[in-house]
């Protein structure tokens, strides 16, 4: 069973760095730390550019910074992957598409394993 993790670890990594919310806000190109607070409290989800900026600031991969969100996305993808594979298996491909269908099924089967990194970390 996958241990649930916090949606994001922005506060943890900021506190480890010793930076204030205002200082992180400045690094993100903001006037204040208000938005940083909202991201840390999970009241807002940062846009992709901000998430990449966080990765750059803390030197931690996005998947680790947003571990909980990453887990949730991984679970959804896994469900849809299984459904897609079942759908492809149920469909009889045309003679010209047999090789491509087999390739897709093999590719999907290869990826039917948990994708989330550090998923065994204990919970809070």
């Amino acid at each position, binding site marked *: 069973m996958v241990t649930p*993790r916090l949606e994001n670890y922005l*506060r*943890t990594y900021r*506190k*480890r760095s*010793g930076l204030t919310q205002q200082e992180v806000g400045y690094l993100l190109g903001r006037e204040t730390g208000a938005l940083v607070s909202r991201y840390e*409290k999970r009241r807002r989800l940062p846009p992709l550019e901000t998430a990449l900026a966080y990765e750059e600031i803390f030197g931690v991969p996005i998947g680790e910074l947003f571990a909980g969100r990453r887990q949730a996305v991984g679970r959804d993808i896994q469900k849809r992957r299984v459904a897609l594979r079942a759908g492809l298996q149920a469909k009889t491909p045309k003679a010209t598409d047999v090789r491509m269908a087999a390739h897709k099924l093999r590719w999907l089967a290869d990826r039917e394993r948990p994708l989330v990194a550090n998923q065994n*970390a*204990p919970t*809070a």
Partner: protein
Amino acid sequence: MLALDVHPQSFGFVVFEGPNQILDWGVRSFRTGVNAVKIPAATRFLALLDEFRPSAVVIGERLARKTAKQAKMLATIRRQARYRGIPVRCISRGDVNRAFVGFESNKYEVASALAQQFPDLAVRLPPRRKCWQSEDYRMGIFDAAALGVAYFVRREKRLPTTSVEDSARAQ
């Protein structure tokens, strides 16, 4: 797991993710008077519960010298944790000393050991206090961390921890 060190006008807290990783730490004040903090202690505690959704809340067992404010705060902790289905566990000073064998001579020794174990806390370690000085407010963080470590040590050894109800009955 959320470890709390409750004082009459503040509480120190440390949020653990397993025995070797801390997620958040700090001191929340609810002092009164000229520089009164407007946000009530309960609100600050609830913010921690909602943000981290801990699997347990660990508090110190203070049988003696419990002030009315501390009692009120502990009652809030117990009520809100129960409402969210989070168990509240009490750790005695003896449990902390047993978890820090060799460092149990005073709180500063324990805090120094914690600063080594968790380098993130090292910058918050106050200087050793002189006998005429009052305790630095940052010691609340280290006291809470010590409770957390003692809780994990007891859990690792499969020793039972006292629930807050048992602790209240003992008083």
